[in-house]
């Protein structure tokens, strides 16, 4: 043990978190020293965004590096870079949405920013963690902040209910997750990802029942966070109850971070052998069922919804199903190249999902005119004539979510199903396609309302500049990164290769 416990490089790796922490404290400090007087929201958001940008810059500048830090409990690699960037992008945009939003621009905005940045720190930990217990810590940090954020919506009683539900179920799932970790610890002797994955083959061969159970419970813990069926039930309720910017944040950043953690668990320990636990057909079938049911339930339930946020919640469930297909492919693939290709696809899909979801929620943010207003699809009527730009942007995003080329949503699905078919997971691909058709139906409904229905009188557009910007930017990005998906994919795939 000649290496020091903590090296300078270790600190460099976690520097983005410190940047976030530092910046998150400033507005709160100002408030405290100013006699509990809320600073100007604009100042607050600038500080917060600054933190995000600095963190993003730091992460990006470290890209290409592979480093294992803090006694192998933190790992910094390409996947971490991508995960961090996704988290920071969605966090940054969510901050912008929050700045504009009716429910969050009140007197507690500095606290809100503090919590959002804190949650992002937790996510960064999740993304970089190399140890299940660290992952647990990260998840808890992220979640605890979110519980409060959900509850913080001003004067909105439903948000309290949502927060409490989210809290109880979240803690419940955390306990399950933790129990799983404990069982893994007991059977493997360590909670470090590489150690666990290295021993998978051996333990599976022994039919170590505790290991089976532990793994199952860990998977359930993750599945809860990304709302995989049947651990999804909180999603629509919480998405509806939370204020829209927070919902956007939850839908994108949480999902991105958690899926990275899942990928780490599913990865191959040894490039030469197929060592993921998906080699065990039972796990494969369990996960396949979860994926298929999520795709099915998410899409099918959304068909009958009218509340736009709930639609997006169900859409989020189904997208988790699609992502799980990618994850399964990554774990199932025999050759390490295929596995990495599937990992790339998952990251790419996350990227596309983040863009589209942020865009969709921004539109909701613009249209929600007062506290507690629950936006339905019918409220969109006549938007096309009121604001062609916003309507066009949302239409692009909806088509992208439905997977119509040449948007990024199409290419994400294309590469995802491609990866699945390459591994002969035809049924997963087939169900993916079939449920996509169902999805088309409800993704088209907002478009129908905006363009084809009679205009409604009550349409009020708030002049939320940052939110509008977010919507338009994401829509444009949806097209541009769709057409230029190749550079993005290559970029991701190169950075994923640093894992080796």
């Amino acid at each position, binding site marked *: 043990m000649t290496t020091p416990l903590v090296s300078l490089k270790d600190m460099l790796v976690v520097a983005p978190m410190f940047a976030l922490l530092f910046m998150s404290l400033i507005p709160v400090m100002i408030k405290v020293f100013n006699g509990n007087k809320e600073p100007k929201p604009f100042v607050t958001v600038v500080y917060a965004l600054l933190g995000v940008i600095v963190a993003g810059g730091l992460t990006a500048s470290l890209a290409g590096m592979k480093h294992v830090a803090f006694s192998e409990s933190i790992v910094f690699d390409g996947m971490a870079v991508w995960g961090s960037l996704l988290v920071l992008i969605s966090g940054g945009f969510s901050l912008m949405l929050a700045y504009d939003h009716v429910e969050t621009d009140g007197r507690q905005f500095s606290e809100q920013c503090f919590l959002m940045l804190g949650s992002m720190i937790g996510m960064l930990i999740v993304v970089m963690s190399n140890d299940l217990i660290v992952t647990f810590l990260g998840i808890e940090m992220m979640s605890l902040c979110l519980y409060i954020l959900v509850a913080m919506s001003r004067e909105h009683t439903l948000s309290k209910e949502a927060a409490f539900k989210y809290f*109880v179920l979240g803690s419940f799932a955390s306990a399950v997750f933790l129990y799983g970790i404990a069982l893994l610890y007991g059977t493997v002797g360590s909670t470090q990802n590489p150690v666990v994955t290295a021993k998978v083959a051996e333990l599976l061969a022994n039919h170590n029942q505790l290991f089976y159970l532990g793994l199952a419970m860990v998977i359930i813990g993750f599945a*809860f966070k990304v709302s995989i069926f049947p651990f999804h039930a909180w999603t629509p309720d919480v998405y509806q109850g939370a204020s829209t910017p927070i919902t956007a944040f939850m839908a994108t950043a949480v999902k991105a971070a958690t899926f990275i953690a899942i990928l780490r668990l599913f990865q191959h320990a040894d490039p030469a052998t197929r060592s993921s636990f998906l080699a065990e057909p039972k796990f494969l079938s369990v996960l396949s069922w979860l994926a298929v049911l999520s795709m099915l339930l998410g899409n099918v339930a959304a068909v009958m919804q009218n509340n736009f946020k709930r639609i997006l919640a169900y859409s989020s469930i189904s997208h988790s199903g699609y992502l799980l297909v990618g994850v399964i492919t990554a774990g199932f693939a025999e050759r390490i190249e295929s596995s990495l290709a599937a990992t790339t696809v998952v990251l790419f899909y996350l990227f596309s999902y983040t863009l589209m979801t942020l865009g969709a929620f921004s539109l909701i943010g613009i249209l929600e005119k007062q506290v507690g207003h629950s936006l339905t699809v019918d409220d969109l009527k006549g938007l096309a004539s009121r604001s062609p730009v916003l309507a066009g942007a949302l239409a692009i995003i909806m088509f992208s979510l439905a997977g119509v080329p040449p948007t990024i949503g199409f290419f994400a699905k294309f590469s995802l199903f491609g990866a699945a078919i390459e591994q002969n997971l035809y049924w997963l691909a087939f169900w993916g396609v079939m449920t996509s058709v169902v999805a088309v139906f409800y993704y088209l409904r907002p478009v129908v309302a905006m363009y084809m229905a009679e205009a409604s009188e009550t349409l009020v557009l708030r002049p939320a500049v940052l939110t509008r910007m977010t919507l338009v930017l994401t829509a444009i990005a949806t097209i541009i990164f769709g057409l230029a998906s190749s550079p993005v994919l290559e970029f991701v795939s190169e950075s994923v290769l640093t894992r080796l």
Partner: protein
Amino acid sequence: MQAEFLFAILLLAPLIGFIINGLRWKSKNYLLAGSIATGAVAISFIAAVLVVMKLFGADAPKAVTVEYFKWMAVGGLEVPVAFVIDHISALMVLVVTGVGTLIHLFSIGYMSHDERPSKYFAYLNFFLFNMLLLILGENLLLMFVGWEGVGLCSYLLIGFWFSDKEKAAAGMKAFVTNRIGDAGFLLGIFTIFFLLGTVSFDEIISKVAGMPVEVGWSGPITLAALFLFIGAMGKSAQIPLYVWLPDAMAGPTPVSALIHAATMVTAGVYMIVRLSPLFILAPNALHVVAVVGAATAVFAATIGITQFDIKKVLAYSTVSQLGFMFLACGVGAFGAAMFHLVTHAFFKALMFLGSGSVIHAMHEEQDIRKMGGLKKYLPITHATFVVGWIAIIGIPPFAGFFSKDEILWKAFSSPLGHKGLWAAGVIGAACTAFYMTRLMALTFWGKPRFDEHKTHPHEAPPSMAIPLIVLAILSAIGGFMGIPHVIGEILPGHPGNWLEHWLAGSIAAPAGEAHGSAIMEWILMGISVSIAGLAALLAFSFYVIEPDRPKQWAARLPGLHRLLENKYFVDEFYFERIINPLVSGSKALWAFVDVNFIDRATFVVGDFVRGMGSTARTLQTGNMQQYALYISIAIALMFVYLLEGPKRLAELFGG
């Protein structure tokens, strides 16, 4: 002159006439329009004569062929735009352009009061162009182009007075019925093409030359022949596709004369004669042709007896005469068929024009019950009509006698013939004589049955009279082109059968010996003429001498009378059994397959998805503990599955 040039004139003259009159379709100047159209056809006629002249002479070619450009060339199918005048088409082209010119001329007077004479003449010219395509086309496809083209013009001209729904319907009926035939024709073309690899008449004939005669029904040539005959049935109004022709009388009368008597309807006969070397190889097909022809001849003639519309009588007469022609084809007497085609063109055109003159004179009255005694008002029309009448009932030496008699004789004597066919022919001829005499009697003779104070029939103007006279002359002498040998021998100078000689190289003859002797021929000739004569006399006595007798007979045989008067209820049968079920069946099909099945299936899927969606929503009770329960159940199931395997899991659910 160059053949290419002459053919171009021949074909393009009517087309140009069509275009000129078509472009000035709003004009009401009937004289100008008529002159243009008539002139165009006359030019065509002259060009035709000039081309046909090339066929005469010692070292004259057997055919004059010109080729302009490739129309279609796909794979092995090469269709040039090529035309030919040989000994068969020469006859036809002269008849069509000649009679066509006369009818155009007649039309000028006839259409003088119409609102849209330019349009009428345009259509008429266009018809002639298509008819020429049909006749002159060197291959089946080009013939088919003309074949459909004449059908189209027929449609337009039948429905010329389209404001009348009945007339528009008649046009449609004609087109659709023809289309059924055309579909058969198409199949015939396909069969021939895949059998012989060509659609050119010349090549078809040279390729089938060495082929053996087909026995049985399923040989390709038999099939092709039958398919083509379906086409001929449609165009030439044979059972069961004859129904359009009587309705086609809705068109202007000159149209009936030109299209529905003299030219277009004979296209089927022409086509079979043209392909006689092919048909002759399929005796079974020829039997079908003969039987259908004979049946039509009798069937239509019997209907003709009871009709009261002057044009309808003539129409059924046309159907019946066409039946004679097919009878001739069917017994292998293609020359006789051509002969009858030509003479029929003369006398039937004459009679239609005559009836046009009558109708014109009677102010659009067509019911012969309201005529009578027109002889004194319309002397020229009457005189010419009489010529036609004598010709059609087959009194020597008028044209009809020679051609009809040749058919009857061949039906009896040809190797493909049969006594039954001959008998049917004689019955048909007798009926013809009867209803034609009846027509004459009711229209021209006896006492006028119209109000002579109100209606003042007047004789036709010269433009209408001249065609009548010319056609009357032709009807009188036209038969001399085909004097039977038995008669020729006893005549001074021993004139041979010119027509037979002329066609000899172009048409096929059935293999085998003809049975029957010259004496037999004389006897049969005598029988048929006398039966026809008797029938005519009977009719004369019925309708002129004792005008009450028909009613008595009708009362005595009510069933037969009703059957005949209602044209054997064929139209009703078609309507009730085919058209109505088709329409209501289609509605049901639409309602059942599209609306109730395919769309329903789509809806069922949609509703299923929706139902699933609703179910999924009911899972979302809002009860947090229930959500936790889902998680717990999932954990439990996963445990059982992972530790015990799928079987245990299934047992849990009672499986």
